[in-house]
């Protein structure tokens, strides 16, 4: 699981010659499957309202999809560490990790609620959070490999897959996408970055990201990875039809659960 930056990079990139050929009908087939699965859930007359946004949080049983994740210390840490990850991938350096992370949140108006949460956080909890962020940053700069610009890295890459004429939108942010778009062979690796502990459901999340990337790009990624900034470990999975099929079923199931919850909250 461990190893230095070079070993980690090798796990993300794999052997280029052994990457699978792309089935040109796969992405379209998955989209049709998703469309069929949600077709009876939203009446066409409902087209005027805002779409139901289904993200990874909405797929969690019991979630309230309209609320999104509540701001907690864990979410704040995730966003701060995520910003540092993005900074390190793009610039190759981190200065004062807490100052850099706070500056990153401050410059983006979508993170205003997190800044407000941090302002209200008791001093001891804020200090603890800052210590955690600094520890993650230390590990990041020693464990994460430099990414060659030629691999065309994209960070915080947004994906949205509209279904049912746009009335349902599957949505995700890919923390890191490596590799040029696919031609005949799968060529992309998608990395999800986590600042929390390793959990079993992270695999489901990762498969959801892989499904969305497949439908968006017209070709599946050859590999999916979860990078844990607390330990520097990475879990990787090769993408195959079975993985994507499971993700379709789970997504349809999640949309079925999310829709009544969204209606009830409206």
């Amino acid at each position, binding site marked *: 699981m461990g190893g230095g930056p070079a070993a980690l990079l090798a796990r993300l990139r794999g052997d280029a010659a052994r990457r699978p050929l*792309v089935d*040109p*009908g796969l*992405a*379209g087939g998955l*989209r049709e499957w998703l469309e069929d699965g949600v077709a009876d859930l939203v009446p066409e007359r409902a087209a005027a309202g805002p779409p139901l946004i289904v993200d990874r949080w909405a797929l969690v049983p019991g979630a309230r999809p309209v609320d999104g994740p509540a701001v907690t210390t864990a979410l704040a840490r995730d966003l701060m560490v995520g*910003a*540092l990850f*993005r*900074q390190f*991938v*793009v*610039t190759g350096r981190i*200065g004062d990790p807490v*100052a*850099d*992370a*706070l*500056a*990153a949140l*401050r*410059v*983006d*108006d979508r993170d205003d609620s997190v800044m407000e949460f941090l302002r209200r956080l008791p001093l001891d909890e804020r200090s603890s959070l800052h210590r955690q962020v600094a520890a993650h940053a230390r590990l990041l700069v020693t464990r994460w490999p430099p990414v060659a*610009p*030629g691999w*065309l*890295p*994209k*960070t*915080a*890459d*947004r*994906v*949205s*897959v*509209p279904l049912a*004429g*746009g009335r349902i*939108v599957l949505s995700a942010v890919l923390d890191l996408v490596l590799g*040029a*778009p*696919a*031609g*005949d062979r799968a060529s992309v690796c998608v990395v999800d970055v986590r600042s929390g502990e390793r959990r079993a459901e992270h695999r489901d999340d990762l498969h959801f990201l892989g499904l969305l990337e497949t*439908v*968006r*790009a*017209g*070709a599946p990624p050859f590999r999916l990875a979860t990078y844990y900034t607390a330990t520097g470990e990475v879990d990787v999975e090769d993408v195959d039809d079975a993985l994507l099929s499971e993700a379709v079923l789970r997504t349809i199931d999640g949309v079925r659960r999310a829709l009544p919850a969204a209606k009830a909250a409206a």
Partner: protein
Amino acid sequence: MIPTTLPAAALPRARTLTDALLSPAGPAPAPAALDALRARLAAGLAAVGPASGPVLRIDAFALRTATGADAGAAGRPFRWTPRTARRTLGVAAVRHCLVGGGRTPAEAVAASAARLVEDARHGLARRGTPAAWLASLPGGARAQVLAEATTWATHLYEAVEWHRLARPPAVGAPDRWWDCPGPVAVALRGRADARFPLPGGGEALLTMVAGRPGPSGRVELGLAALVDVVARPTARPPSRVVGWWPECGRALVLAVDLGLLSETAGSVTEAVRRAAGDRRPGPVHECAIEVPAAA
């Protein structure tokens, strides 16, 4: 959501998109029909637009919010953020990638940003410009701007097979403006991320759009062509406009014909009518733009 036109199974996507951009141009609309369209648009705007006060600027964002989409963003004051600054850095970066030197989008964004910051340090950047803003940011914030611009530029760089182009495209050329003639304070802004000269004359315009195609997607793309038609009456109009939504991997390829131009002109007039509000109310039917019979 509007239907989009690239086959999902065709890979790589850039080949299909480049084929669509570079395919031979169809016949341009008749000059007389374009003259009639200009006159109708000017008359429609004169009927509904403000006669005085600040100039009402209509761009693709205004057309989107006029349909009710993205309504939350409509009243928000503009501020520089990684998202609002990414195009400025992104188009400059792609231009650098295309002139040679083997730069990648990430390297080119870093170089473009460094140049802007250097300009600001030497007093060459006006207040409120991206350069001045970027130079004022601490390292952590500036890194997010670079990251966002790199992702944007990489999407544009990956969208087209640039090596196939016989003539260099104009990437990130300045926006084009048209001030409505007469006593009406309305200006239209046309923006394309890249303009591709076509064999035999004419241009294809490519615009990369965030999110997913919405109800106003056609007219948002059509606006760049409409501004070309009204602002440069002696030039050949663009032959097609192509919208590319990298977030959902969809493209919309539209021939610039009288149907698209008239539909766009109608939406512009309606957006002006709404924006002008009670300054100069007018019934909707006054601003309808009909396709001339010659079409």
